């Protein structure tokens, strides 16, 4: 009897456990789905093309990707690094209506602004010409693809001054001092901190200007491929700085309309020589294409107790050993940079940033019938639960019916009176040497010149 009771109690306990009269265990989605910030966010859903895979931006891109690891999932990084599957490319080309912006650039290769585009597509016949001249180098295996476009800078004035720059990316002015006049190649699209010492007639003065080099564009490409950017400091600049003023010098290549008898065909705008209220950068941008911006003040970067020299956030290593290392990307847009025609993307960041130039975090890639991004699937991590989505248009409209017949009466004053038409013509032709058209083909067509 006791055994029967014991067995009954055990059976009851088993039944209670089996029927769920205990606290409920949550059934979470699969782990792979929990890794994604939301359905359709980390990767393409069925029938949806993936986001545009932007190329990696030079040698700084891995660090940037690592910094944003929490935001970008593995799938997204794969999408950035890897090639688009040929099936997707094929599907996108066959369905041009569902292509995302930039998909053609991805599939056909980004033409950039180097002038290697002709008509609607990229040119495959010519060599791969980066903006600013030169030839795109194929990186050795194991290295990130990316080309370093440099601009040569000439420090021309005052003679004897010593210029140092950051060579290792450590935030120190650790290069060998260059004695003016000197030349140095700087990667384009960077902001460089220089250290000026041994300034003639100003013993003991050390200045720390910054030089911002813009990317080459089709207007400045030929110039930067053949000439250096002259950077000069005058006595007036030093006087202004040492009295507490802030000097901004903008070196630009003037458009033909603004071309003057300036040195080397380029011109320089100095903030201290302009009228108050006129921004030299805006003015230079209006007159031509900016090559470099120099900002000079009297701040001692290396003073103890500061923020550790210029070793602030965003330090970058030099793209090639021996070249100066930028401490920030240039803010001037141009071609050939990481954005390569897509403006506004700073160097070292992925091309698509949620909320900036990509849908908000958690926003699916699917759209509404009127083209706007649809609502996010909340809670994140759950399967897509949206089943109904209604948009009503309450705009007052009064659309009149089109007219079916229209009549226009025209009368010109004065009227027309022409002479009687010719009814008889006598023509005598005499040709001694029959003409042979020997011009180059289409020489008489007034069309656009194609070389």
């Amino acid at each position, binding site marked *: 009897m006791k055994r029967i009771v014991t067995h009954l109690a055990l059976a009851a306990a088993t039944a209670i456990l089996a029927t769920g009269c205990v606290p409920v265990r949550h059934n979470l989605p699969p782990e792979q789905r929990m890794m994604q910030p939301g359905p359709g966010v980390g990767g393409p859903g069925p029938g949806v093309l993936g986001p545009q895979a932007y190329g990696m931006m030079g040698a700084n891109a891995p660090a940037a990707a690592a910094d944003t690891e929490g935001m970008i999932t593995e799938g997204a990084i794969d999408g950035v690094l890897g090639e688009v599957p040929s099936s997707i490319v094929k599907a996108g080309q066959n369905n041009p209506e569902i292509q995302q912006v930039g998909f053609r650039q991805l599939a056909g290769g980004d033409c950039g602004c*180097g*002038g*290697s585009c*002709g008509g609607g597509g990229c*040119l495959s*016949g*010519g*060599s791969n*010409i*980066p*903006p*600013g*001249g*030169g*030839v*795109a*180098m194929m990186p050795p295996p194991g290295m990130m693809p990316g*080309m*370093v476009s*440099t601009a*040569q800078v000439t420090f021309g004035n005052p003679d004897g001054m010593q210029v140092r720059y950051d060579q290792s990316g450590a935030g120190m002015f650790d290069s060998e001092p260059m004695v003016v006049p000197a*030349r140095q*190649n700087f990667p384009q699209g960077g902001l460089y901190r220089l250290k000026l010492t041994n300034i003639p007639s100003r013993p003991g003065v050390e200045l720390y200007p910054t030089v911002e080099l813009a990317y*080459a564009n*089709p*207007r400045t*490409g*030929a*110039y930067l*491929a*053949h*000439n*250096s950017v*002259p950077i000069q400091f005058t006595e007036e600049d030093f006087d202004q700085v040492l009295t507490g003023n802030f000097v901004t010098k903008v070196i630009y290549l003037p*458009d*033909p*309309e*603004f*071309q*003057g*008898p300036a*040195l*080397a*065909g380029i011109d320089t705008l100095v903030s201290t020589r302009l009228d108050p209220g006129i921004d030299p950068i805006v003015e230079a941008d*209006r*007159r031509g294409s900016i090559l470099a911006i120099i900002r000079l003040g009297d701040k001692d970067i290396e003073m103890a107790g500061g923020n550790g020299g210029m070793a602030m956030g965003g330090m970058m290593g030099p793209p*090639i*050993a*021996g*070249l100066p290392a930028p401490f920030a990307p240039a803010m001037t847009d141009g071609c050939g940079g990481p954005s390569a025609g897509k403006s506004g993307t700073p160097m070292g960041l992925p091309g698509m940033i949620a909320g900036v130039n990509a849908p908000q975090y958690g926003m699916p890639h699917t759209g509404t019938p009127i083209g706007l991004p649809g609502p996010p699937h909340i809670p994140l991590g759950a399967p897509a639960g949206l089943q109904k989505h209604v948009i009503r248009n309450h705009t007052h409209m009064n659309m009149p019916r089109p007219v079916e017949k229209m009549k226009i009466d025209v009368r010109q004053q004065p009227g027309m009176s022409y002479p009687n038409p010719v009814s008889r013509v006598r023509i005598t032709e005499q040709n001694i040497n029959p003409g042979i058209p*020997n*011009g*180059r*083909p*289409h*020489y008489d067509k007034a069309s*656009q*010149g*194609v*070389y």
Partner: protein
Amino acid sequence: MAIARITPPSKLLNAGWALPSLAIACVLATSTASTAADPSQYLSSNGQHRLFNGAMPPGAIAATRQMAGPGGTAAMGVQAPYYQPVQIRGPQGVRFALPQMGSFQDPEPGLMAGLLVGQVYRFQISGIRGAEGAELFPTLEMVDRTYPPPGLATRYPIIVTIDEEDLQAALDGQLVTRVIYLEDPQTAVPLAQEPTTDSDTGGETPIDVSQFQDPLQVADRLGRVVAILRIGSLAPPRSHELAPQFFFGYPTWAPIFKPES
């Protein structure tokens, strides 16, 4: 030179110097204008913008030309590689050298070589009079080829002439663009051009255009562009990684040996 008689002589265009009076007038006009420029100011006189201009990066024009069919027709197709004989001439004492495998060959005064059409070559100029030790590294962009009689290609090369004004302007930091074109036989002046006083650069008379004009556009109006020479004062990079970019990937060229005479 016999070139002037058989093949239409190549002419040269210079864009490196603005006319002083025009340039000063332009500066006066711009300094007084404080408002934004009207967009119509940038429209060309013929009401259209040209797709290509001489200020584009070296290689861009040649690449577009490569996409056209033979003879400049609209038929698309990649042209067969062709080594166009080119002779580079300069003033007395100036020597030229082409790079090969990272180093320059022995410089010679009147360099002749077969250059691939569609490529950009950077060569070395040394021995400039009045600037001893100075070296310039201009680029020569091969846009198109000539069609000489069979077997006479090396006898009638494209002659690229560099005069002292070009070298001096480049040493001063200017960018000199020379567009070498083949005259349109319909509009060419039917006169044999006599060599100028400087026998080394003789034969051609360069047309100077102001900086307000596009030399490529002027040359295109007068004939068929075959090469573009740009002379600046850029020095080769010290970093070896940047050398292929500086030399445009070291395109191949064919040496042309002068006959023993």
